[in-house]
């Protein structure tokens, strides 16, 4: 079975029934403040708040949140090496080792970048771990995103799990027959796995087309959207939190 920890959390947390708009105000507001902050303490505060809100308030499993957080943070750490370490001479060296040097200004900008990445990814995760991605796409309908792309995204979501289940089982079957025992076989196996998934996907699409025709499908994949009234207290608190963060960002500049 194909499962994504973030997706599982999104379907089962306590904010699941909240309207996407509410959560988007909070998560999006924090994201904007974090990405534009100039004092590292602001995005770090935002990151910790997002973690707390997700885990304590929405009851997202903390392991899920932290595990999802490490991906972007690892990229950030590797990338920061490129920001900090210079080759040759630098204007304000704090450290030199052979041809490599570390500049004072690079260090401070690295700290800022690192803190922004910390805060921004947590703000996005707050939405990702509390809102099924299909609800996000559904809410984009109101923002006049082309219907065809939203239909595509919706069907894609369902097919990812249908095809993912086959892909996982096929890979295991290949492994059972030692398809991944050595490099050359492994490459051949991966190629065969992709081809099978692609061909199977097209076949699935054709079968789904037939199956849906009986349910009156004639091109539109529109479905009944759940009614989720916006909670103004929640939006109010969110705006307040974002405003405090923004004020802190301005003051601490």
């Amino acid at each position, binding site marked *: 079975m194909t499962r994504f920890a973030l997706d599982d959390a999104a379907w089962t947390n306590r904010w699941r029934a909240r309207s996407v708009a509410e959560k988007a105000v909070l998560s999006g507001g924090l994201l904007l403040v974090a990405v534009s902050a100039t004092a590292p303490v602001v995005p770090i505060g935002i990151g910790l708040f997002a973690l707390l809100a997700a885990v304590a308030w929405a009851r997202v499993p903390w392991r899920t949140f932290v595990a999802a957080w490490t991906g972007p943070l690892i990229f950030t750490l590797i990338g920061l090496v490129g920001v900090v370490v210079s080759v040759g001479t630098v204007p304000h060296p704090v450290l030199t080792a052979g041809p490599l040097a570390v500049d004072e200004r690079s260090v401070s900008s690295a700290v800022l970048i690192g803190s922004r990445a910390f805060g921004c990814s947590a703000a996005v995760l707050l939405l990702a771990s509390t809102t099924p991605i299909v609800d996000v796409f559904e809410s984009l309908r109101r923002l006049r995103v082309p219907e065809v792309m939203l239909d595509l995204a919706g069907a894609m979501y369902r097919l990812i799990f249908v095809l993912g289940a086959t892909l996982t089982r096929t890979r295991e079957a290949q492994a059972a027959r030692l398809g991944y025992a050595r490099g050359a076989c492994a490459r051949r196996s991966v190629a065969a796995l992709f081809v099978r998934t692609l061909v199977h996907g097209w076949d*699935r699409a054709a079968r789904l087309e037939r199956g849906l025709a009986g349910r009156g*499908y004639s091109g539109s994949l529109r479905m009944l959207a759940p009614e989720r009234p916006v909670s103004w207290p929640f939006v109010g608190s969110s705006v307040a939190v974002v405003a405090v963060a923004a004020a802190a960002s301005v003051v601490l500049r």
Partner: protein
Amino acid sequence: MSDRSQPPVLALQGVDVGYPGAPEVLDHATVEVRAGRRIAVLGANGSGKTTLLRTLAGALRPTAGQVLWHGTPLQHSRSRLNEHRQRVQFVGQDPDDQLVSADVRRDVSFGPMNLGLPVPEVRARVEEALALLDLLPLADRPVHHLSYGQRKRVALAGAMAMRPAVMLLDEPTAGVDDVGVRDALDALARLERAGTTVVVSTHDSDLAWAWADDVVLLQQGGIRQGSCAEVMSDADALTASRVAVPAVVRVGAALGLDLLAVDRPRTADDLVGLVHARG
């Protein structure tokens, strides 16, 4: 209970259907679906069960013969077909061929939305179908968190939300365990109580014997329709169709029981009851 003299709700009359590479899956097939009678379409894998149901549903266009709705031939024009699909729903074997939405409630709404109904009406039909199939506790769950048997029930609910007069179910019990089969049969009984006539295809002769009133037996080069007791006590016909004689029939015959009786033994438990009754 239906009146044999009434015209059938839905029928095939001398229908030929084929595919490229398999010219005549159905060859001059005639089948009658009567309101309120349980029909099992029985045959081996590859004998044309699915093709028969899909032809009844209007999804396949016969090269000869006609699909009849209350005696009127179906026109395979777009608008006529859309009408036909509302009253005759086909549910395939693999639920993943019919489920397109992320969660259960949204998926069940797909058909009613396509009918262009007003939103409150859609909502009412969805809740009704969910309740009928005992899916309310799962209504907000994502489809990919459900088991195979649960997904089959969601596909059924999606079809029921169209409020069809006839439901055609392709192998509703295949790959489902004993409790799942019982649940599926319960669900079918509820559909019937809601006034829907149910046609089921199966390769499981024990199931057909236990459940059906009438049987359509797919044979090499022909179709035989009749009451379940009559068709299925003909061992030669079953064997020729590569279908096993039901265990109850074999053992019951050896015990000298009357298998054509109105209260014929349908299950192993019925047999046990009769054995005990004889002492």
